[in-house]
């Protein structure tokens, strides 16, 4: 299973080396084999999963912190894996025709492969920490994909917004995961389930809930964080199809679904989800009415659909989970189709403006069929799977104990509006008269029209034979929530029930709305007036304020003079330490612990003091630098006396290099010296004496404390036994705390690159003017 996840990453790395030749030209279809083979791999599990088996695999990563790469394949993750790889295959194939001849097709496939791998990792992870890692990886790859047209400002801006919002959510997820981990003592979700009571009774339950909600709502574009999704439509259409309708935005839904048995069934959990879902679904469904861009319409209807899912999870009954599970499938099938159809129309006709498009069936019949079929499924007209899905939603809301009528009414309104959105995107461009300017539109490439047709037809096959999904996917999904699944029977025809009436009402009103209301620019302008009140502009203003504040902060404290930085740092330390030391510390000096002063020490101290005096009163830079070198060497000698040879060696080398560096720079500087005046010297003198005094007091106090040598004893005892080394310092560096060293040398390398970049790559002032 690890291999299945890593394939995408490996492929992306391989593309790095000469990928351009591989994916351009006739072999462009080749990358689609990767999701296809993964799809087949996951299909093989359907049988096991439908027998209520759960596949579990653990690879140790950082066992000492309880962070492992443990993967679980159950009903829920199987459904998502199939969607990711299945729709992924079609999107990969579709891309090869959609972005044909694009110079950066290899990059695009690389990002797409990374995304697919990360998404698979996300839904398969059982460990919350590794889930977080994959979660962030999807955000990052999504950032690159949205900003794929990196020459357009709007695209870059949308990419940043999306990364900002979803990245923030990711951090909330990490925080939530850490709190959950500290409550239960494990990061594995499957193990957490056994400590359900601990979580529910914990003082931090509300906190965890808010953090998890924050993560899920940002990722799944719930109100008021929904606005990044319409912006993300700047991405090429295959990306919108894949990330922003079928898979990534459902990661939040996945998280809520996954954690429902763990944290659900409380008033807080259910009410919050229901209300947020309700607001989102109605709010964005209304927004669909005011859009003229096909992708804009679809974006808002996607947000609305995500709202429905959150709402259903919030209801928390067996029927609502069933409805949510089926609706995930339904939505993925028809929305991916509609997006692909939009992409074809855009690609061939060159516009997505719904007010201009009509009659395109005459030039691209298969696309028209796909669009119309998807719109039918979207509207929930039998015999599509959409009908089954919608019925289940109504059954879920009608059988509630509280406010069933109210919630059902909201569900109906949303569904009517969504079905209108479907007609606008899936039917409107293809019916009516073909305008003259579109008569010469060419018939699309096979790979452009076939994937949407396949998906749309699948929606009807599952609609006519719903039992295909029943045991294989739907039951195991509900099973993961821990509820009874024996009474689940997916059927197209339920007989004459109230639900059927509601369905008919929805379909009728949807059609009526479509015939009465034509999308127009006027409506779009009307809604634009309210932009100032939208969460988007509010959050944008907050971000702007934050930037201004940090600009102010930087210009106040970052003067660019190193001496000022040092003064500020020292002053801060003095006030912090001084406050702690003055605040109720009893001073006692343990004279007995002092060793006798030797001649060497006296000599070195004298040298030290003399060199410091020389630094302070030197008349030339070079002399001052050389004196700092003397001071450094004397300190090294002190280290040697106090048996810290490793430290002394390093310090010697560093001091030598520092002096050399100083000399190299100073050698070239003009002779003119701007010495500081007396006032500054007195100020600096007071500051240094205060700091030195504080450090001395601190050192004396530390000496008076009883020594706790547990840690050093551990290292001394185990460095040879565990790490085969006798030099404890070095063993700590390369073995016990090797990961630290690894990060440290990376930081070193980064800082060297920084120095190189600052000095070598700076633009000459002339070049800068030209830019």
């Amino acid at each position, binding site marked *: 299973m690890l291999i299945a996840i890593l394939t995408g990453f490996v492929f992306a790395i391989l593309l790095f080396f000469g990928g351009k030749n591989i994916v351009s030209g006739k072999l462009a279809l080749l990358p689609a084999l990767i999701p296809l083979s993964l799809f087949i791999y996951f299909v093989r599990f359907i049988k096991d999963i439908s027998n209520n088996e759960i596949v579990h695999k653990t690879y140790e*990563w*950082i066992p000492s912190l309880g962070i492992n790469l443990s993967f679980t394949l159950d009903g829920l993750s199987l459904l998502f894996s199939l969607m990711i790889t299945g729709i992924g295959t079609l999107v990969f194939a579709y891309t090869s025709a959609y972005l044909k001849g694009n110079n950066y097709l290899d990059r695009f496939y690389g990002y797409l492969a990374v995304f697919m791998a990360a998404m698979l990792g996300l839904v398969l992870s059982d460990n919350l920490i590794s889930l977080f890692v994959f979660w962030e990886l999807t955000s990052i790859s999504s950032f690159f994909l949205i900003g794929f047209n990196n020459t357009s400002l709007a695209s870059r801006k949308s990419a940043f917004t999306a990364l900002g919002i979803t990245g923030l959510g990711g951090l909330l997820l990490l925080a939530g995961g850490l709190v959950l981990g500290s409550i239960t003592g494990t990061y594995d979700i499957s193990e957490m389930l056994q400590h359900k009571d601990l979580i529910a009774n914990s003082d931090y339950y509300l906190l965890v809930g808010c953090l998890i909600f924050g993560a899920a709502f940002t990722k799944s574009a719930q109100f008021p964080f929904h606005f990044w999704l319409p912006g993300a439509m700047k991405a090429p259409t295959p990306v919108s199809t894949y990330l922003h309708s079928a898979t990534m935005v459902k990661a939040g839904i996945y998280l809520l679904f996954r954690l429902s048995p763990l944290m659900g069934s409380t008033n807080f959990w259910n009410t919050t989800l229901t209300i947020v879902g309700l607001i989102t679904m109605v709010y964005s469904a209304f927004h669909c009415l005011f859009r003229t861009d096909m992708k804009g319409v679809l974006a808002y209807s996607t947000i609305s659909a995500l709202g429905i899912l959150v709402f259903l999870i919030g209801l928390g009954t067996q029927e609502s989970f069933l409805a949510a599970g089926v609706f995930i499938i339904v939505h993925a099938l028809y929305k991916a189709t509609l997006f692909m159809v939009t992409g074809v129309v855009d690609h061939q006709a060159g516009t997505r403006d719904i007010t201009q498009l009509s009659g395109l069936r005459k030039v691209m019949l298969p696309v028209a069929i796909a669009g119309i079929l998807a719109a039918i499924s979207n509207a929930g007209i039998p015999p599509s799977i959409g009908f089954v899905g919608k019925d289940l939603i109504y059954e879920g809301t009608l059988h509630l104990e509280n406010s069933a009528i109210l919630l059902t009414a909201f569900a109906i309104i949303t569904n009517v509006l969504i079905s209108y959105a479907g007609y606008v995107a899936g039917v409107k461009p293809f019916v009516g008269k073909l305008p003259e300017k579109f008569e010469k539109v060419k018939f699309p490439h096979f790979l452009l029209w076939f994937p949407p047709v396949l998906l749309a037809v699948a929606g009807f096959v599952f609609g006519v034979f719903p039992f295909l999904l029943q045991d294989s996917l739907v039951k195991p999904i509900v099973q993961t929530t821990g509820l009874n699944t024996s009474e689940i029977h997916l059927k197209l025809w339920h007989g004459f029930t109230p639900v059927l009436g509601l369905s008919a009402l929805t379909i009728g009103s949807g059609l009526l709305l479509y015939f009465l209301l034509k999308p127009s620019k006027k409506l779009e302008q009307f809604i634009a007036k309210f932009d100032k009140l939208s969460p988007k502009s509010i959050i944008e203003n907050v971000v702007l304020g934050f930037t201004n504040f940090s600009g102010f902060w930087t210009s106040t404290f970052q003067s660019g003079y190193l001496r000022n930085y040092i003064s500020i740092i020292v002053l801060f330390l003095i006030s912090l330490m001084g406050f702690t030391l003055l605040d109720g510390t009893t001073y006692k000096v343990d004279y007995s612990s002092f060793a006798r002063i030797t001649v060497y020490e006296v000599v070195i101290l004298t040298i030290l003091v003399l060199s410091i005096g020389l630094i302070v009163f030197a008349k030339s830079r070079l002399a001052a630098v050389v004196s700092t070198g003397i001071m450094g060497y004397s300190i090294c000698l002190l280290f040697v006396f106090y048996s810290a040879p490793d430290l002394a*060696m390093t310090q010697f080398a560093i001091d030598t290099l520092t002096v050399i560096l100083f000399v190299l720079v100073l050698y070239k500087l003009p002779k003119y010296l701007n010495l500081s005046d007396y006032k500054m010297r007195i100020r600096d003198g007071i500051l240094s004496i205060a700091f030195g005094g504080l450090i001395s007091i601190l050192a004396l106090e530390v000496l008076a404390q009883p020594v706790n040598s547990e840690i050093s004893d551990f290292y001394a005892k185990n460095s040879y036994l565990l790490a*085969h080394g006798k030099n404890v310092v070095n*063993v700590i560096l*390369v073995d016990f705390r090797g990961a630290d060293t690894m990060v440290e*040398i990376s930081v070193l*390398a980064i800082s060297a690159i920084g120095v190189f970049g600052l000095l070598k790559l700076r633009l000459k002032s002339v070049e800068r003017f030209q830019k």
Partner: protein
Amino acid sequence: MKTLILRTASNYLLPILLLFSIFILLRGHYLPGGGFVGGLIASIAFVLHAFANGLKDTKKLLKFHPGFLMPIGLAVSFLAGLLPVIGFDEPFMTGLWMHDTIPVLGALGTAMFFDIGVYIVVQGVTLTIIFTISESA
């Protein structure tokens, strides 16, 4: 600072100092020393050479930009950490040790390769910084 004495001496000092730095690197596991100090000493050797003969000569001697040492060193350290994962099914950065000892080197383990990586990175970083600054100052 191109004095004849220093120039002549630095030609002999460079190999000796480099050998010394490797000596320091290898003894690190049992006695004071290690990759970090070793790397610093090696860079001092090159810097001394640059002082005596001019930066151009040292660069010619090195044949490639010292910056390339950074990724190489990072890769060596990372692979030393990765080896237990790939070959022995152990967590990342588990120390592996050979049973037999090799003359001169003593016991051979992944920690030593990790340290060699540190040695290379430190050299690359110091030389890159010093060369860049002395070129553009």
